[in-house]
């Protein structure tokens, strides 16, 4: 009896999560879907979306990893304050984030004004899309990475140092391989969030095809004139996100942490094969 109830609850939950997204695919015949999609505009938007979200992800990894490591490993006054502040973009409405970004990076903004003196304009440019995506999705990565780093036993890092390995090298040879699954899922989450980012991009970067019109913005624009195109593009966005997320998770599962170590470290760090050791 309990089993049946259990399965029903799970089935209802899954249906709730899947059906709205599946509906996008079945609202029109596949042929129509493809015909509506087959426009330069949607390819352009897809291309831009992938380009910007991947760029955003790279910057997030570069900037977010040290922040996450610092938050996970150090102890200082006001640490929980910083941790909470880092999560703020998750809870702030995207339009608010967009306004905030304009106030900082806009041409009359805090930093934007200084940049504009050098002829650099960040807003309403492809880089603005990347910034908006970074701002919105970085907390997802930082949060996951922070937990992954915190879960790495500090004693392993200590023992590594007693074995004569520097902190930097220890980071690559111990911390990263052990935190890899968490980092990977954080990156996947952040990347997915960046791909679907709409509100802040619309506000901060504008809606210019080929420059700032990412797939979600193209969907919004298509809704103004042709609902079918909008649905078709939504299907495309879902499909692309789904495929890439699946790839990331598969990568996470098949990548043996060991291999990450070997790949991550170029110098020969004494990784031995069975034959060498037992011969």
């Amino acid at each position: 009896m309990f089993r049946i109830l259990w399965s029903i609850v799970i089935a209802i939950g899954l249906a709730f999560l899947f059906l709205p997204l599946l509906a996008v695919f079945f609202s029109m015949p596949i042929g129509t879907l493809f015909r509506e999609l087959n426009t330069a505009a949607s390819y352009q938007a897809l291309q831009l979306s992938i380009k910007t979200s991947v760029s955003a992800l790279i910057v997030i990894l570069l900037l977010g990893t040290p922040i996450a490591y610092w938050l996970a490993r150090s102890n200082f006054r006001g640490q929980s304050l910083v941790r909470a502040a880092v999560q703020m973009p998750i809870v702030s409405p995207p339009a608010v984030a967009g306004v905030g970004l304009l106030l900082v990076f806009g041409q009359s903004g805090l930093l934007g004004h200084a940049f504009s003196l050098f002829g650099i304009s960040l807003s309403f440019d492809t880089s603005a899309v990347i910034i908006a995506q970074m701002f919105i999705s970085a907390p997802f990565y930082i949060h996951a990475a922070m937990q992954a780093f915190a879960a790495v036993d500090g004693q392993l890092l200590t023992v590594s140092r007693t074995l004569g390995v520097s902190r930097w090298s220890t980071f690559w040879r111990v911390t990263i391989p052990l935190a890899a699954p968490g980092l990977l899922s954080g990156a996947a989450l952040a990347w997915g969030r960046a791909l679907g980012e709409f509100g802040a991009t619309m506000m901060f970067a504008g809606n210019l095809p080929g420059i700032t019109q990412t797939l979600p913005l193209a969907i919004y624009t298509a809704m103004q004139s042709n609902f079918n195109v909008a649905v078709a593009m939504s299907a495309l966005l879902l499909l692309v996100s789904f495929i890439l997320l699946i790839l990331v998770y598969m990568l996470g599962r098949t990548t043996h942490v060991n291999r990450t170590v070997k790949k991550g470290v170029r110098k020969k760090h004494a990784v031995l094969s069975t034959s060498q050791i037992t011969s």
Partner: protein
Amino acid sequence: MLSFQLRKSLREFTLDVKLNVPAHTLALIGHSGCGKTTLLQLLAGLVHADDGFIELDGKTLFDAKQTVMLPTERRNIGMVFQNYALFPHLSVGDNIAYGLQGVARAEIAERVRDVLRMFQLESLSEAKPNTLSGGQQQRVALARALVKRPKLLLLDEPLSALDVETRGHVRAELRTQLDQIGIPCIVVTHDYEDARVLGQEIAVMDRGIILQRGEPEEVRERPANRFVAQFVGTNWVADDQVSETCGEEETRVLSFDPWHAVVTRGPVSAERQWRGRIRDRALYGHALRLWVDGDVPLIADVSSHTLRESSFEVGEDVCISVASEHIRQYVTRAQSADEERRDASIFVRDEPSEKQTQVGELWRPASRICFLRSPLTAAVALIAAVGVGASVTTYSHAQGAGANQAGHSTTLTAFVAANATDPFNAIIQAFEQRHSGVFIQASYTGTQILQTQLQQGAPDDLFLSADLSHIAQIKKEGLVTQFYPVSHDKEVIVVPKANPAHITSLADLGRKPVNLIIGVTSVPIGKYTREIFQKANAVYGSAFSTDALAHVVSEEVNVKQILEKVALGDAGAGIVYQTDVTPTLRSKVTVIPIPATLNVIATNYIAVPVHAPHPALANALLRMMVSAKGQAIFQQFGYQPLSTVGGNG
């Protein structure tokens, strides 16, 4: 040879230890929290001492006076942790080889093979640590520390993670291994038995200072004070029966082993006897150990055959005596903790001059690493990094954009209210046909977002506003000098094809129960809808407006959302712009006109911002839109003809 003197203030006491350890094993024992693990961390460089020095084989690892602090990774100290801390992602072989950096591959293989053989781990070289038993893990941890050929080996509670059965066996094994390595070795333990087996020498520690140091047997037989005696499990009594003192700082004491104590219920005729009450009892092998509280706390073992005759219970009063041949009498310095500290605070370095030569290459604490430790500076550094990274990106992008402009094409940017998406796309086509090499990019969004973006200095050539108030605001701020009406539109009622609420006219919205969806007041459609309702009050009765608004189930920010909800049948009726009902939507909704006398004309306005990058072309576009040709395109999409064309405001 290790020699050090270290002082470090801890939370409850000050750690203050001076020791010389030759190439043998010193077992450091004390209760948990006595500072022994901290001492290991100080030696390994994991914790910074307040004062003192560490010298290993003539090399200075730490010297507070000369601010020398060699980092952990350069001290060449092997360390084995309580839980062994094996890298879970590496095999046994890789764990052992981990620290061998900058060593030739062949030599790594050979050295790893040697230690694998020494610790009988050959068959496990490919195994992952989590598949090993506690004893095996301990051997791997030891092998990993020793393969680096350290000058000093530190073991922190190496046996406490093992279960009782394997413990004895592993302990004996570890003793053999430690005897072979021939370097100074410090084993920290809280168990005297471990210390006795492992250490050639033991040091008893309490609250940060060493109370006694010596060979295990010597410490057990002649404990320096009561604490040591209790720790090693023997009896220590200040000999008050001996009246003469040997000096002010020295006390005559006697000690005897618990198995020589004789426990009786009544007094006996022995020379030395003490009375007391049994506080606790426990079985120790073949004997029952009793803890007796009296004038002096004592321990006594009762052998099991005595036990059968008379069992001693907790709370019983007993008499403990010992035969004089089992008593060890000796003199110990009555050393108080304060005196010990006074001693230790005189820091004298042996031969300090010779070490100067090595100091040059040593790491000093006041180096660049320190400032990165402050979170504030780190945060500033990160923000700076963001700034630099972003500017580099934009700069390269700006370069690229500049290259584009060098060609013959010009790109105009237009900010267009989303409701004008379709006609404006047609206008773009028409304009681009007439002006070759000119491309128009349009950003379609809500007017209020476009307004914000303009206020933030977005580079824009043309602004099409769906609302008078927004463009008027822009004008007030001096961002545009003049704006013009460009298109007229009117409102209609839309109902689903099935029309479940049977709406046939505007009047029905107030009369019949219907799920009505209108625009929110802040967007033009919402404002116009309310104006229409107000006007209708005069015709349909003064309650119409209130009644109709009472039927509203949702206020949307976007006309398209009103239309979609009506088309999907979620709403019984909605009020939208006529032009929004595209041919596709006409198959799903029915349009009900609003009487012209009650309708409100919705006007779109256009303007060229003063900072437009391409003002000439932008003005050409503006003129084209208000010309007959442009208006024809608007009418094609259902807009009303412009009755008057001219400046506004």
